[in-house]
Each structure stands twice: as C-alpha cells, then as structure tokens.
C-alpha cells in the first residue's frame, strides 16, 4: 500500500491555516476543511483527515475551543472558535513564517545587479 503522505507542507502550516480561517469566523470541521481547500484554490494537497489531529493539538494547547452546536441545516456539529491565545500564536507564527519566506525568496530569486 503506497501512502502518498501529503500531510502538511511543513510542521505547523496546517495549524496556521486553521487558526487563520477560524479568525474570520467560528466553523465546524467539515466547513473548515472546505474553506481551506477553496481558499488555496486546491493548490495544496490536503488529506481531509489530517485536519482532525491538528485540531486536537490546537484544542489541547488551548489555542481554539470547541462546542457542540446546531448547523443551519439543523445538524449537530462541533464548532471551533479561535481563543485569544490562539490569535496571539497565529500572529507570531505568521510573522516568523513571512520572515522565513522572505529569506527563502531572496535566496531563490535571480541575482539583481
């Protein structure tokens, strides 16, 4: 059985995207998944399942909270909400990610003279 392991781009990337998405509005798992997929224009290969361990990690660290609620279609869903601690974490992560990205880009871009 060949498992193509498309878990995440790098450790923490998926968590970052989840936090970012939740900052816009609280969502349940499935919606969260669809939002991320759409937002990335399907550029990122994300195995849907990998979302849940990531959510558990965020829950455990107190970056998000979860509550059972009812959806618009009247289904029982579990809604995740960004916690203040999560917002702070996201900020830090994004800025450090941007710095890294900038560094990588500079190295990769053609030499300007």
């Amino acid at each position, binding site marked *: 059985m060949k498992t193509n392991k498309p878990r995440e781009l790098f450790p923490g990337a998926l968590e970052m995207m989840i936090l970012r998405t939740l900052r816009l509005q609280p969502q349940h*798992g*499935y919606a969260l998944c669809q939002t991320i997929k759409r937002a990335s224009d399907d550029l990122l290969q994300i195995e849907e*399942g990998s979302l*849940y*361990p990531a959510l*558990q990690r965020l829950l455990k660290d107190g970056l998000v909270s979860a509550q059972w609620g009812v959806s618009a279609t009247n289904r029982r*869903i579990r809604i995740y909400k960004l916690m203040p601690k999560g917002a702070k974490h996201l900020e830090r992560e994004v800025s450090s990610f941007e710095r890294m990205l900038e560094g990588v880009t500079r190295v990769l871009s053609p030499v300007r003279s």
Partner: protein
Amino acid sequence: MNWINSFRKRRAVYEDLSEEIRDHLEEKTRELIESGVSPKEAAAQAKREFGNVALTEERGREIWRWSTLEDFLSDLRYGARGLRKNPGFTFVAVLTLALGIGANSAIFSLVNAVLLHSLPFSEPDRLVSLSEHNWYPQGGFAAMRTSLQTMDLAAYLDGQEFNLTGQGDAERLYGTQVSANFFSLLGVQPEQGRIFRRGEDEPGNDFKVILSHPLWQTKFGAASNVIGQRIMLGGVSREVVGVMPSGFHFGSSKTQVWMPFNLDPRAVDTYWGGSWVPVIGRLREGVSIARAQAEVEVFQHRLLRMFPWKQPETTWRAASVIPLQQQMIGDMRSKLLLLLGAIALVLLIACANVANLILARAATRQREMAVRATLGAGRWRICRQLLTESTLLGAAGAAIGLVFAYFGVSWLKSMLRADDIPRLAEASLDVRVLVFTAAIGILTGLLFGLAPALQLSKVDLTESLKTGSKNAVATSHRLRSGLAVIQIAMAVVLVTAAGLMVKSLWQLVHVDPGFRSESVLSARVSPNQAFCDNFERCQSFYNTLIDRVRALSGVRDAALVNALPLNGRVAFIASRFEGHPEQVGDQPEPILFDSVITPDYLSVMQIPLLEGRGFVESDTARDAEPVALITASTARKYWPGVDPIGKHVGPIWEKQWRRVVGVVADVHEDSLSSTLPSWITGAIYEPFSAHAVLINRRPALEMNVVVRGTNDPTSFAGTLRQVVAELNPEVPVTETETLGGVVSKSMSAPRSVMWLFTIFAGLAVVLGAVGVYGVISYSVAQRTSEIGVRMALGAGRRDILALIFGQGARIAILGVCVGLAGALALTKLMTTLLYGVAATDPATFVTVALLLTLIALGACYLPARRAMRMNPLVALRYE
C-alpha cells in the same frame, strides 16, 4: 483522583472525535450525492479523500494521552496473551533465560558480597591498610601509633592458637592478637560486655579475652554471666571481657578469641624481632590516602634507626596505604570478575537461543504483522510491540532465575571454602542482587528481542499478506545461522577456559609434592606454652607419645614435625650462611623455612635423602652438636658448586652454627604450585631439640604427629586421641587428617574454580548445541519441498545427508574459528589461575576445536536423518 477525572474526560474527547469524523464523512457523502455522484461512489470518494479513518482517529487520540505508557500496557497484555497461547515456546524460552539469569545472579551475589559491600564497620571509607607489602615489628607499630598525625593505627596478628582447658575437653582455639584500640578503631560494638580498653595491650594488663559469638554459644551455652569469668587459655588465666556479635569476622573468618598484644619494650627481642604484624589505620578527618602514605614513607626511615640493631635499609618496600577493603579482597577481584565474565557469556548464548526461537516463531507471525501494518501500525510501533514481548520473556526469566539463583548461592557457599574467599558468608540475594537480576532480565529481553524485532517489523505488506515471502525467510535464515555461529564461538571460548583449568588442575594433581602421602595420617598435638616452658618435659611427652603410637598395630612408623607441608603453617628463621658475609650491603638476611623433626620424619614421609646422613636419636640431646639438613635447591642457591656437607648455617641471633650433615630433596611446603612462600628463600631441617628455636626465639612445641600405617590410616585417628589423652588430658588433638586429604585441600581453590568453569562450559555447550539443532532442523523444514525435488531428480540419501551436514559444518567451522580467535584473546586473562599450562596451550585449543565441531555436527544429526528419510512424494506436496 485527578487521573481518573482526566481519564473520564479523555474518553469524552475520544467520543467527540469519532463522532465528528463520522459527521464529516456523512456530510461529504451527502454533498457528493447532491452533486450527482452515485451513493456508492460518493461514500468511497468521501473516504478516499479523507484518508485512513482509523489512523486519523488514532493520531487524534494520541495527542491526548500519555501514549507511551498506555501503548506499553496494551502491548504487555497483548504479549502475555500471545505467550500464553504458545506454552511450548514460552516454557523453553523462559527456562533457558532463567538458567542464564539465575547463574548470573548467583555469581553476582558473590561479587556483591566480596567487592561491592562496604565493610561492616563504621565509616569504612576511612579505614586503610598499611600492610599491602610491609609488616612491622610490634615496637615499630607502637612507635607509629603514637607518632603518626594523619591517622590512628591498630595492629592484629592472625593464626595464634591457644588451648582452652577447664571447659570440658581440651580444645584448640584459633585466636587473633590485637592492639587494645583494634575494636574501637574499627568502630564495632560487642554483643556482650565491652571491647578492650586503652592500655590493655601493655604488660600486666593484657590477661583479657573477647570471645566470638559461635564460641560463646557452643562452649559457654550463651550464658550472660560469662563476662568477668576467668578461663584458661594456653595455660594462662584470662578474664572474659566481651563477646563479639556473630557477623564480626576480623582478622580471620576462623577467629574464635581475640586477645591483646603484650607490647613490652623491655622484651627487646620480641618487641623488635618477634612476629611482625600487619597494621591498619583510620584516616583522621579530611586526610587523603596520599598524605597518609607520604607520612608513613617518611616514618619508615625514622623507624629503621629505632631498632636496637642495625636494620638494613631495604627492610621495607615503599610505603603503601590502601583502602582496607582492597587489602581484604586481595586478588579475588580479578578472579570474581573473570567468573562473572564467563557466566555472562553463558547468558549471551542463552539469549541467542531465545532469539532463534523467536525468529522461528516469527515466520508464522508474518501475516499477523502484515495485518497490523495495514491497520496503520508504523514500523517502530510493531518493533515496540515485539520488544515488549521479549522483555516480558526476559522478566519472566529473571523471576524464575531468582529461584535458581537462591539455590545457586547456597550451593556456591557450600562448595567454596570460606578460607579461599573472604566474606563468602555475606553472599545473599539482597536488594542489589534483586535489582541486578531485574536489570539483566530486561536488558536480555531487549538484547535477544532486537534482531527479531527489526527483522520481523520489516514487512513487505503485499507479499506477506499473500504467502509470506521467501525473501524474508532467506534473510531470517542468514540471521539465524549468524546467531548459531556466535553461540558456537562463545561456547568455544568457555570450553577452552574450562579445558585450560582442567589441564591446570591435572598438572597440579600430578605434581610430585616431594613426599608420599599414601597411608599417612597426621594430627596436630599442642601442649600449653606453660607445659613446654620446661623443654625436657615437653620433649619426653612427645617421645613417649611417639613410642606408644609406634607400638600400635598397623603402624609402620611415626614421627613429629612442627609445620606439616601444604597445610598453611609456616615456620621460619632469619638466618646466615657460612662463607656469606654477615650482611651483603642492604640485602635482607635469608629467611629459611625451618622444619623441626624427629629422626624418622624423612622415612615416614619418604622424603629422599640425597647426600650425607639423616638425623639420629643422639642429635636431639641437649648437649649434642647442633646439626641441620638442607634442601637441594637451598644448597645450590647459597653454596653453588660446593659440597654443602660440613658447611654451617644458623639463625642470625645466635653465634652457635648448625653443621649441615645431609641434603634432602625439595618438598612443596607452601602449595603444589610453589615449593615455598615467595618471601622465604630456602629450607632447612633441624632435629627436635632445645636448639631448634624459631623466629619467636622459642623451641617448637606444637607438633604434627605423622603416622605411616600398613593400610587405611584413618583407623588410627581414635586411638591417637586416646593415647594423647592418657598421657595428658589437657593436650588437644586437632586437624586429624590423612596426608592425602591435606594435599587435596590445598587444591580446593583451583578445584572449585575449575568446577565452576566446567559447569559454565557444559551449559554453554548444551545451549550452543540446541541452537545449532534449532537452526538446522528449521532449515530442513523450510527446504522440505526442495529436498523432495532433489530426491525426485535422483539425489540419493547420502547427497541429502551431505547437504544438511554441509550446512551444519559451515556454521560449526565458522563458529569454531571465531571462537578460537576469541579464546586466544580472552584466556590471557586467566594466566594467574593456571599452573603448568600456557593460556594458549595448543593441545587444549585443538581438542576444543575438534570437540565443538563434533558436537555441532552431532546436533545436525537428527534433522539430517529426518531429511534423509523424507518420502519424496510427501515432500513435494509440502506447503
């Protein structure tokens, strides 16, 4: 109860997670159906895009739990279930391990008692010995005790024997003389009464005695009123001041009474020249051993000037101060570690066997592993599961091994002599041994589980799900053969070691001790010092005794000697030789073993007279000219190329020479491997007379009666005691033994080491053979269809036999070669244990190589026969 709460909470978290994932899949499926996908396809696609559901759930849960422990517990349950389902495998594996671990724990308990336990004295770290090389005269000790600043000193002298009379039958007691501060320096408390007080080692105050616990029990009925009682020891009345507790054995395990020295500066001869004594010390607060040693070094030079005569500069070797424990352990350290190393090899062989068993079992478990892998278990996870199983086996082996160890320790204690191993009595299964056992149980579990675990977890899923791949079997076979090779190699090392010990002991047994021990009985007869202060009285007592013994029926001849060969007693004088300068520079004077004998001793012992004459009755008279016999090697050493007859030799403290009247062959006085103790330079004989004075300036007065009979000498034992009792009931008769027994006892240490090695080697060979058998018979089973094809194509039984034996021979020869190389490197460590055989003895090596090759091939016999007798038709249909 926090963990229960968290456990309950966790359960809710898990349920939430599962529900959420279910919802996710449902929602997705529904959406897909709405977009026009067929319901069946929608469900499949939802699952596909989601990924492995079970694995996702597992990963999600993992985040919440302290996963290692819980995995471990579930592995443990799973492993235990697997082992219970396979009782045959479990039994063999656990038993093999239990044997190996038990033997290791038993030997370790010796190591623990001798090397690791600190001495049972207060603050043992500060106790030191000054006498690794140097003993000191009593006067020297007294001077050091008052002068040294770095430590407090005490002295003791073992091997003093005293007659206890007036308490039932006269009894010979083993005593240790000690300085008054001996007990307080060690920091030990008496069980009854008190220890010696300051000043009780001075003349007039010294008539005191302290009893050992066993003596107090047996001879005094453990009565508490024994304190203050006066007892007769060596004809002198002494006051019992204390009883030491049963665990106290110092300076010897044999000590029954402790008595103070009599440090008398006015008795110049004994004070400076009598028996020298070993000295121990307690470092004062904050003093290092190096500083103490430096002070002793300086003081030794001062001490030389204190002698009432000129003492040579080379009297002492450089001062050495070592921990007391190290002094007591002596050369046991290397011996015990060697034993521990050897038994560890046995355990390794056992591990290899169990690893082989697991590998064999692994073949049938490949499917199980594949299923687990499909269900999402990673390689490490499977490995951990397998390691947990093997650790479980190791732990079970350790638990049962403890039972073996318990019996092993008591067997070791009964087989080894307390004289050969200091602190043997302390060996037991204490906490440290338990921890050791548990640790090696777990370690061996990991060790023998590692190779199979790596092997087995490397599953190729599709292949093994289908059939169980041939490929995996092939690598597993290589691994198993490799293990068998290692087993044979280690067995070769152990058998070589045992072979060398056996050969060494054989050499010892065949050493000519210089006398004939057949039909000779010996017994120690020891009148009181006081009785023998009048030497004529003593001499006539002995002469009457010898006459009466000689008259007994069945007795051929009887004689007396002060120090029987090979029984550990040393009688000596410091001497000078005619023609040699009184003192050659700083050469210490020759120390001679001095056997004081009656004229018939040579004929009773059948010691050959090489030249001149032996002693005659008239040599023992008080007014006779003092004469001596000299041994051949001593004559060669001191008068090379000169006829020693008529030359003179004598003690340094006398002007009176002894004329040499004869030369006799050398006798092994010290041990079968050396004629004399290393510090003794030669040997002479003197007739039993008032002239024959030993190093304590006294005539010999305790003698061994040696009786040569016409047949079994033990039959005189009772009569001899009777004869002595009739002559003088206060004279105890002890150590009644045949001379053969004395010789045999002198070999007890090498013999017990040889037995241990032989047992280890036996275990190694059995385990090794089982290993080879396992590998070959497994391979025969694997190759059944191949063998069937070969037979169908016309291979004869002989070809099949050759095929199987060829495989066995490869393992055997490779194993033997590796083993011989290992043995060559390792047996060097036992050089000091060997006598008359080199550690690289070619004959032993060749024999062992042949023997083990044969055994390994023998182990192939059964599987080979099975292969040979296969019915080709059945074999072809196999699988």
